[in-house]
């Protein structure tokens, strides 16, 4: 059992969720409430990582953040090391790759808040910020929660992007999914089996907990 890889994966998933939570709320809400000409294009771009093969996505990430890219170059000057093949690099790729999972369900959640309820909140004197906290978020919460569960489980199991962007450096970029692959390559089927089962258990537990939680929220709103 490669505990280092498991903790690395959990750390990456946790950070990805932490970064994407506010982003999913703000952009999901914005997309839900606004109509504009290029909305279809924006939504398509958000969904793009979902349909691209992870290796293709990882390849473009390498190009975009590698040593020869403006971003990669700036990162090197600022921090004295490359962005690719580091945990931070993985995190950047993971955040971008998870955008569809983070934004789409949150957007659906905010779309379910009736426009009259939002207007009533404004007419009750609630500023947009207080309306978000007191009225909209409690109503859109199931969507946001679904988004975060998807992001967490998806990051835990991601393989192609991580391999392209991070390589397989133990303790730095070698996540559990890659470790499993390595074990299979090295004919350690038992190790791979234990780690795979662990991953299944964690994912199942996360999703079950979410379903139970949203059922409780549903009853509360009933």
């Amino acid at each position: 059992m490669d505990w280092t890889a498991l903790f690395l994966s959990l750390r990456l998933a946790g950070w990805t969720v932490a970064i994407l939570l506010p982003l999913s709320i703000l952009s999901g809400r914005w997309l839900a409430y606004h109509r504009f000409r290029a909305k279809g294009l924006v939504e398509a771009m958000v969904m793009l990582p979902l349909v691209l093969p992870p290796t293709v996505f990882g390849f473009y990430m390498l190009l975009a953040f590698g040593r020869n890219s403006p971003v990669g170059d700036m990162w090197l000057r600022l921090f004295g090391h490359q962005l690719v093949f580091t945990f931070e690099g993985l995190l950047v790729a993971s955040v971008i790759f998870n955008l569809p999972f983070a934004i789409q369900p949150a957007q659906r959640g905010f779309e379910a808040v009736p426009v009259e309820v939002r207007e009533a909140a404004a007419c009750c004197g609630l500023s947009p910020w207080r309306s978000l906290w007191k009225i909209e978020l409690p109503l859109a919460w199931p969507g946001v929660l679904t988004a975060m569960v998807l992001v967490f489980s998806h990051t835990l199991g991601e393989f192609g992007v991580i391999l392209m962007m991070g390589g397989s450096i133990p303790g730095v970029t070698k996540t559990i999914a890659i470790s499993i692959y390595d074990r299979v390559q090295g004919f350690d089927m038992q190790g791979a089996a234990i780690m795979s089962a662990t991953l299944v258990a964690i994912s199942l537990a996360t999703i079950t907990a979410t379903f139970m939680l949203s059922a409780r929220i549903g009853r509360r709103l009933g």
Partner: protein
Amino acid sequence: MAPAVMALDAMAPEAMALEAMAQATAPIPLDFAFRVEPGELLALVGHSGSGKTTVLRTIAGLWRPTVARVSIGGRGWLDTAKGVDLAAHRRRVGVVFQNYALFPHLSAARNVMAAMDTPDPAGAARLLDLVNLHGLGDRRPAQLSGGQQQRVALARALARQPDALLLDEPFSAVDRATREKLYSEILALRAHLKMPVVLVTHDMNEAQLLADRLVVMDKGRMVCTGTTAQVMADPTALRAMGIREVAALLPATVVSHLPDGLTLLETPAGALFLPLLEAAPGTVVRVRIMAHDVILSRARPEGLSAQNILAGRITRIVAGQGPAVMVHIDAGGHEILARITRRAAETMGLQVADQVHAILKSMSVARDHIAAGAPAQGGD
């Protein structure tokens, strides 16, 4: 209810008049201008699509027409010419939405508190008492009936301590029996409301019974404004409302409840027998008498099943396009309208200043055409 009403009296420190006007051609055509005095209830009436809700939304800050001005006590909420446009949450309005738009995840009390500047559970309980929801503060909207939700919405609107109260079709989603009760409650509350109130409704009955003044809207345009009597004398308004809605409003005092299930009322024009009212003797009510329910007779008729015979004098006879004429009758200082055929008027030789008797079947006055409170006097 008394302490609760006192709580209401303490609110809204200064009463101010509401002024609103707008002109727009697209996307929603609008053309209106009116002023609502403190404590006055103005009803915006018109068919669906006549723009009346848009007027309300303009006042609340939920819609901005191309050219518009909204001010309260002279302070501008919206002035497109000067670039003033206060966001909805900065305007002190209380709004009751058509489907109430309560916050589904909050209890009734928390819905009310959401509209308070500083949440005050005792104040919320008092407001819920005021709208007859004592002890239901912990219920969520889904656990309340339509009428109860409507009351929560009203309490929430009042909790905002609004400078103007806006009611958008507030009675359209409740059943008839509940509606009758709510009419009386609103009229009772009104005596304590110091702010201007704007009521949007497609129901002429509701508008006539509750409002001091009406604004008739048609295709976004204000076609007529005035008291019931003034609006009913305006042919353009009648066209916009539909001729079948023409009715007069008569003040009456409950005298007694009779054992046969009728209530005897006294009006300046004579006695009225109406189906049993739930009002104590001495209560002043407004009775809406539909023009097409009134029969005219020169002599005081006898041997007739109709019990209500009100004497009066013809003030106007207005002929329309169709086969009918509208006869305006002054009955004890109040106007009664009778819509009869042109043929009948000619056969009877009716002339202005003739004495006539207006006859009304007791059973033709629907229960929801009567509400507590005296009607506003005509300003003409």
